[in-house]
């Protein structure tokens, strides 16, 4: 073993399905005995990552190490891992006992030993006396337990779980979460768990790996991920959040929503654009008072069981979500306070769209795989590679894709308190980012227009090509 205590190491994995890149340079190390959750929306590559560890998929690029040995080309049946499948995949022609004994029989374990071990795991998952039952006669939760028993009876070094609780109802899921956590403690083996449920991920894991569009966004403990998200995607995906465009004025001083706030972040530099995240439960709300840092009017207040969810509008046109144990009536004037430590400041990934393009002729440029009209370009000839900058709010979207120069679909929507920040994937797979006041829907197909005067075109360095 190369490094002490590392059981799985994924190095720069890439995977293509046809011309769609489902994994993009995924690297991850998992320590022995750790409970790691890979979390992300559907299609983010989390299941593919798990299937690569299990051996059902081979990476197009990069390496998989399990227990220190390279496993890229090793068949699934030779890997020291076992999987709990999403829809259980219990063998319908075998009863509970034979399902669980399946792996042991293949390994040639003696009959008496098989019996002891099967009984032991049945007891562990709370399914004693079910051994002769037909698997079709079991409820979803019971099938789930058998599926777990069938995997852990083989005493694998790593247990892989592919959204194992997604088919269960809410109450059952909660119970199984607790049991899984106990089982993990009891067995002492490594769990790699895949889910799209952020609450589940935060509850269960030692380490959470947040993925989106085939890229690892953040790896950290549940509290790190929740309290210190590294970008807007993570902040938005994990829990509720208020996300703002802000400016880091100086160390420990940030401005957003038209106000200056004290914060605890340093080292960003002066007057740097940043994203600011404030969790709804971290905003203190009270009846209008001069002690508040800023003020607003309640537009709605909904009871959510434990707390109230309050939407507040500020005079500058920002909309905030606040959670509080006390109700505030709609129309009421309120004041708010945010503590410095509750303000999470993140470096912006980009402050404007920067697109690679190519001149078609003096007044047309190819961007996103489409021909856009541009202002006459002196000194640039057809075929010249160019870099084109377009500000987020200068990109126009049209309802009818035929009204646009280019076609795209909306892949991610982020609400930033006074506008929407959209990620639009153009036909050629490139992303363009759009700030808009209009409400669009996820997966909408839209037309993309850019006015010629809003493009800043510069010649791309030859070395970049």
């Amino acid at each position, binding site marked *: 073993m190369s490094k002490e205590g590392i059981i799985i190491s994924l190095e720069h994995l890439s995977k293509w399905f046809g011309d769609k890149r489902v994994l993009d340079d995924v690297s991850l190390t998992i320590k022995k005995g750790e409970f790691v959750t890979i979390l992300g929306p559907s299609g983010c590559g989390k299941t593919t990552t798990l299937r690569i560890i299990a051996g059902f998929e081979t990476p197009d690029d990069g390496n998989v190490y399990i227990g220190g040995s390279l496993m890229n080309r090793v068949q699934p049946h030779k890997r020291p891992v076992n999987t709990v499948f999403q829809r259980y*995949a219990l063998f*319908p*022609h075998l009863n509970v006992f034979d399902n669980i004994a399946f792996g042991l029989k293949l390994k040639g374990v003696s009959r008496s030993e098989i019996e002891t071990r099967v009984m032991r795991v049945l007891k562990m998952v709370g399914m004693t006396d079910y051994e002769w039952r037909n698997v079709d006669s079991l409820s979803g939760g019971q099938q789930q337990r058998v599926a777990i028993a069938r995997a852990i009876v083989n005493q694998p070094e790593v247990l892989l779980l592919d959204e194992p609780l997604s088919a269960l109802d809410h109450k059952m899921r909660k119970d199984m979460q607790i049991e899984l956590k106990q089982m993990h403690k009891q067995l002492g083996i490594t769990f790699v768990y895949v889910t799209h449920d952020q609450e589940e991920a935060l509850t269960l894991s030692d380490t959470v790996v947040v993925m989106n569009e085939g890229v690892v966004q953040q790896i950290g403990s549940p509290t790190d991920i929740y309290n210190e998200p590294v970008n807007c995607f993570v902040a938005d995906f994990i829990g509720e959040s208020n996300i703002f465009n802000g400016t880091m004025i100086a160390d420990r001083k940030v401005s957003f929503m038209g106000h200056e706030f004290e914060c605890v972040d340093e080292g960003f530099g002066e007057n740097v654009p940043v994203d600011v995240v404030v969790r709804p439960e971290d905003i203190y709300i009270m009846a209008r008072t001069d002690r508040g840092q800023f003020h607003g009017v309640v537009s709605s207040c909904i009871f959510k069981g434990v707390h109230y969810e309050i939407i507040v509008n500020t005079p500058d046109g920002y909309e905030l979500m606040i959670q509080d144990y006390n109700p505030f009536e709609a129309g009421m004037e309120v004041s708010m306070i945010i503590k410095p430590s509750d303000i999470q400041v993140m470096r912006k990934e980009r402050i404007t769209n920067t697109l690679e393009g190519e001149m078609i002729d003096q007044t047309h440029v190819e961007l996103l795989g489409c021909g856009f009209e541009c202002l006459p370009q002196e000194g640039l000839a057809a075929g010249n590679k160019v870099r084109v900058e377009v500000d987020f709010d200068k990109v126009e979207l049209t309802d009818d894709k035929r009204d646009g120069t280019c076609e795209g679909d909306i892949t991610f929507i982020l609400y930033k308190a006074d506008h929407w920040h959209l990620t639009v994937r153009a036909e050629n797979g490139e992303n363009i980012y759009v700030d808009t006041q209009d409400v669009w829907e996820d997966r909408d197909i839209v037309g993309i227009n850019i006015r010629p005067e809003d493009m800043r075109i510069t010649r791309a360095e030859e070395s970049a090509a």
Partner: protein
Amino acid sequence: MNLRNVIGRRSSWSLPYAVFLLLFVALPLVLIMVYAFIDEGGRFTLGNLARFFGDADALSTFAVSIEIAIENTAICLLLGYPVAWILANKRYNRSGVTIIIFILPMWINALMRTLATADLFNMLGITLGKGTLLFGMVYDYLPFMIYPIYNVLRRMDPSYAEAAQDLGAKPSRVFANVTLPLSLPGIVSGVMMVFMPTVSTFAISEFLTNNKIKLFGTIIQENINSSMWNYGAALSFIMLIIIGISTLFGGRGEEESQVQGGLI
């Protein structure tokens, strides 16, 4: 109760089919039963059945029929299963259309195909006999074996095979312990669809062996053609029982695979 109400009821739509069923399925079956148990004078007798069990020729033909049907079914299964498996495997066959190539021969009348096969053998100078008979039968009935097995395999959740592999089964064990047992309904359905018609066929043996090999169907046809209605009916009755028994054996599997859709 007026006419409109009667027509409006959904159950009355099945009336034409019920009449058809009665006239062309139930009535002939009853007639076979009746004719099998009466003599030419119309009196009740068990003589027709007794005659079969005393008729060495008929008994040996019966045995040959069953033997050939079993051989044909076995060959169809051995050839058809791998074909179905390859067709159902997405790694080798991405389109769902390729299967049609294997079903396509069935769009041509079986009699014409059999006649053409016989001519082909004659042209190649191959003596007609048991070999050519089996060839013709396999050629005719193979699609009936491939299709139900293909259907079951194609709809099988791939995670079963993955789960088996995950639990340590090498590919041959995955097949033996999971894929094969789970495809059993398709196999049973295929076996039924091949075995039952082969027991009763007579045209194939007539053309492909020049009547050198007689099958059970052949004697029934000969008896009925020579107006031995009662004995012919008794033989048909015996065949019905054989088919009935084999259906009972495969009943469960048949049911399951019927759900998965029939032939084109």
